[in-house]
């Protein structure tokens, strides 16, 4: 439960067990030549042998060990072990119980003995005990009296605990005054769920009458507490215990671990969550003797300080960044000011008045382009000036005649070319509050004689209010985003003409603002087609990547499609995105209710949350550069608040993965040179795509780098499966959710995923779980790719769909009903010109269904390939229900994992694992008779294959062993199984279908390995490439030189697999 080192000057340590026994650990020199030291463990003494959830032990001196134990049943026992001073402790160790603390109404999840507190008692040092429990309280107890106890002092309680007294939760019964009457000195409620741990922060000052604590909980929160005490005039000590602040560093549930480290004026806390992440935050410490009356030490995330500009008589009218460290601001009295941010954050921003333009005091629009050191200022009469930061000059560039609503810089540079800092041509778009038109202005050569401007006004689609704009295809096209979620693309207007948009989609971001548009990357195909990948961010909390395709053969047909969408700020608003110059990470910023958020989307972690009052207050953000930190400025009442944000690298140590246990995995093994993708689905309702990493140490990722999170599902994921080519991902969950995703790699963006379609439901409020599904690639009428899908539901029904990726629609072909049991597995079985379905259920039976007769009206079946007879249109005109061919009991309870291995036209091996600890191997032989197909099944089961339920089965390899003498072939199958017993076992199965009954099945047990993953739910196999000839195949980290087995459950783990 807990351990500590022996008192100073002594070697070894002490451990307390979960049954309240104290062990001593001794390190001695070894007699054996194999090693230097031996460790011996001695049981010293036991106290009341209750089961503990928590304990703390400290060695007060060489002869006195103090312990606190928190029981599962809500009691705290404080006791000591006294040893003789001569160091021969084990012989005459004595236990003595000092306190039984009762009062907690739930299990004690943590107890913690404080450091010595000198100011607590007048003449001797004091100590507190902190405890936390299921009852959501943290309680503080005074255990100062334990400090000076000796073996000679009588124990306050009988040590064996056999006295008759009541135990259990709740108040102590009457007549038990002697025990449990001690109460805590102070207690407080905190956290929204169970409190797992509580910790004392250090005390630096010996007169200090307060100490800080930190607690961690199931609610994924750390709470900072302040405990203070004061002697009142009547001699009693008054305690105050309050929650100072809280922080939620992890995702999902639980903070499982925490440790503290004092560093100068702060305490650094390291936390580990159920998401597998390791994070750091620091707490500002107050070492004054007394706590201020209004204590407000906020948890300061390292690397940001805020400085407030002193309110002046003039307020900021509008402001924008003109360089990473300079802010251009127009005040309400018409001053145009330049604010220089101090990078160290130590001094306030210094302001410099550039000029005074009185009419800007009442109205001004500013747009900045810090990369080029430019800004645009528009006034109420429509005069637009350009400010060049390098020359500190203002030049009139356009007079548009009426008040502008917004000014948008349009960058012509494609992302591949470095933006030149000296570019002397700019393009910008002006939009108006009332007119349904916009003006495109091009200006060049300001500050020189060759100054030229050109303005074109064009008509906008009706009700289309522009709130973002960008040029695509090297300026050939103009893309604008509206306040109602729309996107429109124009051929860049050259002169005043009524041009119509080439493309328009009014609901890209729902009905919310399209906040941001920029081109991420471009590519061109061999046939002359060009693709620009354009990113848009919206107030609906999502960001999208669009592929804009321009046909090269002079027709210039433009098409647009979404290739990626992620809802990254749930309930929030994404204002913009950029790629960090230093790390290359993809960054997002926006608002989540009242907070401004900067998020590292590549590392899936929030960098900073600033309570700025939401997006309706003016704000500006500069992403920073190599020389300057990112900076966020917002208007708070009359003043501007500036926040510098230092790089985040320091407080994310390990990025982690799913917030809860994984339920499903499927691996797309990339061909030579590609990167394999591991798709996982978990109880946290997300699907994640991981890529195995090659350099483990360099990144915050471990073995697996999460490249994408798909969080559209509303409930825990049941299954994930890739199409063979890795282009489509299929996922299922409860509420009858079955999704099809298109997955592709986009240059400089990474893996793009887009939800193509969701399967239709019979009842929109359905709560059925889709426990399993299988897919079969088929050919559409036009020879394109299509999928035959079989979904099994928790109410024992089966649905068979055709899915057409081109039209993104499902066509229901047929359905079926098993008994009443929940179906757990579905597998298509295709042999020659017949299609069968095998399902398994919680009753331990597998069922064979004939699909051939039903599917004949939809497909032609030749050589195991299905080809559609006619086009599917997404309508559901299901044929007759499919019928059950036969049921075979292979397990005595639920079948949890199953794989099919086709052996021949007529024989198939079925390997299954069940809740009954059993692995079964069944040989299914079908024969065609005049009355239809006949099946015969022979099953070998191994009831003691695992010590607990077998949850997953994975076929690793399959080889044919030809037998020349009998001219038959048997097949050798290597299978991995795993289950709740933390074991991964490898089996070799040889099946000879020619032998009668079970005689042709031999099962050999090969290997047994422990896996640290609890509740293993699924296994994935990263296949190795064909024969690897290259000499560097043994280099550690080189991918796919050997097959790898991915074990998923509570966490994930990867094993190398060798033949």
């Amino acid at each position, binding site marked *: 439960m807990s351990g500590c080192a022996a008192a100073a000057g002594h070697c070894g340590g002490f451990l307390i067990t979960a*049954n309240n*026994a104290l062990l001593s650990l001794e390190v001695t020199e070894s007699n054996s030549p194999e090693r230097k030291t031996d460790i*011996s463990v001695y*049981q010293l003494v036991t106290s*009341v042998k*209750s*089961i503990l*959830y928590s304990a703390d032990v400290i060695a007060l001196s060489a002869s006195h060990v103090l312990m606190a134990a928190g*029981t*599962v*049943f809500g009691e705290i026992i404080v006791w000591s072990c006294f040893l003789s001073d001569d160091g021969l402790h*084990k012989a005459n160790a004595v236990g003595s119980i000092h306190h039984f603390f009762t009062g907690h*109404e739930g*299990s004690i999840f943590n107890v913690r003995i404080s450091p010595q507190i000198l100011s607590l008692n007048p003449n001797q040092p004091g100590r507190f005990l902190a405890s936390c429990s299921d009852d959501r309280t943290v309680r503080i107890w005074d255990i100062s009296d334990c400090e000076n106890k000796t073996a000679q002092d009588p124990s306050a309680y009988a040590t*064996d*605990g*056999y006295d*008759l007294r*009541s*135990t*259990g939760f*709740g108040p102590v019964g009457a007549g038990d005054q002697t025990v449990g009457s001690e109460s805590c000195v102070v207690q407080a*409620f905190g956290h*929204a769920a169970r409190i797992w741990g509580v910790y004392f922060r250090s005390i630096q000052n010996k007169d200090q009458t307060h100490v800080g604590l930190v607690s961690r909980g*199931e609610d994924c929160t750390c709470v900072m507490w302040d405990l203070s005490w004061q002697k009142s005039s009547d001699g009693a000590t008054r305690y105050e215990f309050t929650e100072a602040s809280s922080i939620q560093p992890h995702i999902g549930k*639980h903070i*499982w671990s925490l440790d503290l480290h004092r560093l100068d004026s702060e305490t650094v806390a390291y936390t580990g969550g159920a998401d597998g992440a390791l994070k750091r935050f620091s707490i500002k410490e107050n070492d004054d003797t007394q706590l201020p009356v209004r204590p407000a030490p906020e948890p300061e995330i390292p690397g940001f300080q805020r400085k407030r500009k002193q309110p002046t008589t003039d307020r900021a009218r509008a402001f924008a960044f003109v360089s990473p460290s300079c802010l251009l601001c127009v005040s309400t009295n018409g001053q145009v000011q330049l604010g220089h941010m101090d990078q160290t954050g130590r001094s306030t921003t210094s302001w410099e008045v550039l000029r005074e333009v009185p009419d800007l005091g009442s109205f001004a629009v500013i747009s900045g382009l810090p990369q080029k050191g430019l800004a645009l200022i528009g006034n109420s009469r429509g005069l637009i000036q350009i400010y060049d930061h390098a020359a500190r000059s203002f030049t009139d560039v356009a007079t548009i005649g009426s008040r502008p609503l917004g000014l948008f810089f349009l960058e012509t540079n494609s992302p591949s070319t470095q933006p030149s800092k000296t570019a002397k041509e700019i393009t910008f778009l002006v939009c108006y509050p009332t007119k349904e038109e916009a003006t495109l202005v091009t200006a060049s050569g300001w500050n020189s004689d060759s100054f030229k401007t050109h303005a074109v006004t064009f008509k906008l689609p009706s009700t289309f209010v522009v709130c973002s704009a960008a040029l695509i295809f090297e300026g050939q096209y103009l893309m604008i985003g509206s306040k109602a979620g729309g996107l429109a693309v124009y051929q860049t207007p050259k002169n005043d003409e009524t041009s119509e948009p080439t493309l328009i989609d009014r609901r890209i971001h729902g009905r919310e603002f399209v906040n941001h548009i920029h081109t991420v990357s471009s590519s061109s195909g061999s046939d002359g087609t060009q693709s620009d990948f354009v990113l848009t961010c919206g107030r609906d909390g999502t960001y999208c990547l669009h592929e804009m395709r321009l046909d090269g053969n002079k027709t210039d047909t433009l098409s647009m499609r979404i290739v990626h969408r992620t809802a990254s700020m749930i309930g929030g608003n994404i204002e913009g995105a950029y790629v960090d110059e230093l790390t290359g990470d993809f960054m997002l910023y926006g608002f989540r209710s009242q907070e401004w958020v900067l998020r590292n989307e590549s590392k899936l972690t929030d960098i900073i949350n600033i309570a700025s009052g939401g997006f309706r207050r003016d704000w500006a953000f500069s992403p920073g550069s190599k020389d300057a930190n990112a900076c966020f400025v917002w208007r708070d009442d009359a003043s501007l608040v500036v926040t510098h944000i230092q790089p985040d690298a320091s407080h994310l140590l390990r990025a982690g993965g799913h917030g809860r246990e994984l339920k499903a995995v499927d691996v797309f093994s990339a061909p030579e040179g590609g990167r394999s993708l591991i798709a996982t689905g978990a109880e946290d309702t997300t699907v994640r795509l991981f890529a195995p990493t090659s350099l483990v140490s360099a990144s915050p990722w471990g073995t697996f780098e999460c490249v994408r999170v798909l969080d559209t599902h509303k409930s825990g994921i049941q299954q994930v499966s890739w199409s063979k080519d890795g282009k489509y991902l299929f996922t299922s969950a409860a509420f009858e959710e079955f999704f099809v995703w298109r997955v592709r790699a986009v240059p400089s963006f990474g893996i793009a995923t887009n939800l193509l379609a969701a399967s239709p439901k019979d009842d929109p409020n359905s*709560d059925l*779980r889709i426990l399993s599904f299988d897919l079969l690639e088929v050919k559409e009428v036009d020879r394109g790719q299509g999928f035959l899908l079989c979904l099994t539901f*928790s*109410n*024992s029904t089966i649905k068979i769909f055709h899915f057409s990726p081109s039209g993104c629609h499902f066509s229901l072909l047929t359905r079926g009903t098993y008994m*009443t049991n929940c179906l757990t597995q579905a597998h298509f079985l295709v042999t020659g010109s017949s299609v069968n379905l095998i399902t398994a259920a919680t009753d*331990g039976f597998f069922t064979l269904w004939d699909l051939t007769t039903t599917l004949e009206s939809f497909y032609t079946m030749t050589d195991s390939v299905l080809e559609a007879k006619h086009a599917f249109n997404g309508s559901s005109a299901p044929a007759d229900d499919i019928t059950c061919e036969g049921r075979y*009991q292979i397990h*005595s*309870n*639920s079948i949890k994992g199953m794989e099919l291995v086709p052996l021949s036209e007529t024989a198939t091996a079925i390997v299954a694992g069940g*809740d*009954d600890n*059993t692995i079964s191997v069944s040989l299914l032989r079908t024969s065609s008779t005049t009355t239809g197909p006949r099946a015969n*099944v*022979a*099953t070998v*089961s191994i*009831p*003691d*294959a695992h*010590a*607990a339920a077998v949850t997953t089965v994975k076929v690793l390899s399959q080889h044919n062993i030809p037998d020349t003498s009998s001219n038959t072939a048997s097949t050798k199958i290597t299978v991995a199984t795993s289950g*709740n017993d*933390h074991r991964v076992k490898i089996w*070799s199965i040889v099946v000879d279908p020619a032998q009668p009954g*079970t005689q042709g099945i031999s099962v*050999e*047990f090969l*290997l*047994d390995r*422990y896996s640290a993953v609890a*509740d293993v739910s699924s296994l994935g196999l990263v296949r190795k490439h064909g024969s690897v000839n290259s000499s560097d195949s043994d280099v550690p980290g080189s991918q796919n030189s050997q097959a790898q087995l991915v074990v998923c459950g509570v966490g994930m783990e990867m094993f190398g697999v060798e033949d």
Partner: protein
Amino acid sequence: MGKSSKDKRDAYYRLAKEQNWRARSAFKLIQIDERFDLFEHENPDNVTRVVDLCAAPGSWSQVLSRVLIKGESFGRRAWLEKKRQEQQGLEATQATEDKMDCDEPTSSAELKPRKNVKIVSIDLQPMAPLEGITTLKADITHPSTIPLLLRALDPEAYEQPAVSSDSPAAPEAVREPHPVDLVISDGAPDVTGLHDLDIYIQSQLLYAALNLAMGVLRPGGKFVAKIFRGRDVDLLYAQLRTVFERVSVAKPRSSRASSLEAFVVCEGFIPPISDSGVVGMAALKNPLFGGAAAPVPVSADGNVGVEVREEIDELADARKTASISTDTPTSNHTTEVRHLQTTTSSPAQPQKLTNKFAVENRWIPSFIACGDLSAWDSDATYTLPPDYVNLDPIQPPTAPPYRQALELRKLKGGAYGKTKFGPVSQA
């Protein structure tokens, strides 16, 4: 999950409310009894004294009360009884209308109450009283529970302890106490989500129940306890086998296949012969099993540290599987059972601690699914009839430890006002 969706999702939750059980776990005991004949329905006098550990909210005690005290029978047993009576009946009419209804336990008409029934139920939580059952509020892992239990079982065998606080009042039996026939335990801690800890605490709870059972069971008595089938559960099975003739692991259909939960059914108690020859109370002070047992020193100076080499965890020799039996359940289905374990001989005595983790100290008992396969499936979703009336649970959940925290938050209102004071889900 709302009440209505839970009704659909969980057939047994709905049935428990319809049939007046305090919790759905009642069906688990009924289904185990169907398979193992726990209550020896043919020889009712063999099972009359029962201890129910970790009883709250009391559904297992309710089953005990209704089977032993009232003499009802349930489930398949009730149906068979009914059939038998109809066969004997004077009317020759075929009972064709009677559909087999084994999945919905209905009590049979004839009551067969047993004599000299003694049932003691212990739990940490206060439990609503049940007629004829002695209920105690106590911690079964705490040593002070032993004398409480002994006194409750044999009130006349123990003198009331002297009412003085200075003498520790361990009761001494005035005469040989009556042992009990059956000890059952459905106890589980509130799972934390930290798997190793949850499985450890559950195993310690089982050891505590076993240690108590060993002090009160008669030779040949039975012990049924909840177990989590997780890591190293085979060590636990092997230890149980040292004190019982037969150990099986039972999974009732009413227990979700998706949960780790199962039940060990141990039959034929063999009281261990201890060196000192002490039994009962004295033996309980030095429990044999679990973390509470005293560790065995491996060297003369009392060192209890055992070197665990990494290889012990790895098994690398390929093994064939040995055939046990073949069977042909249907004309086109042949089955054969083969065992991986080579040790199927008589139960081994507790091994020395040095090879505590070795293979020979692991053992996997036969897994037995209880309840009819056509019974309700606790994992399946059922369609409720349109006129279905949603019932409230029979026994509202006992006060959760965080009740006060929730109430406090409710009082505060504001952002906390959203917190619903919902019912606490039961296992």
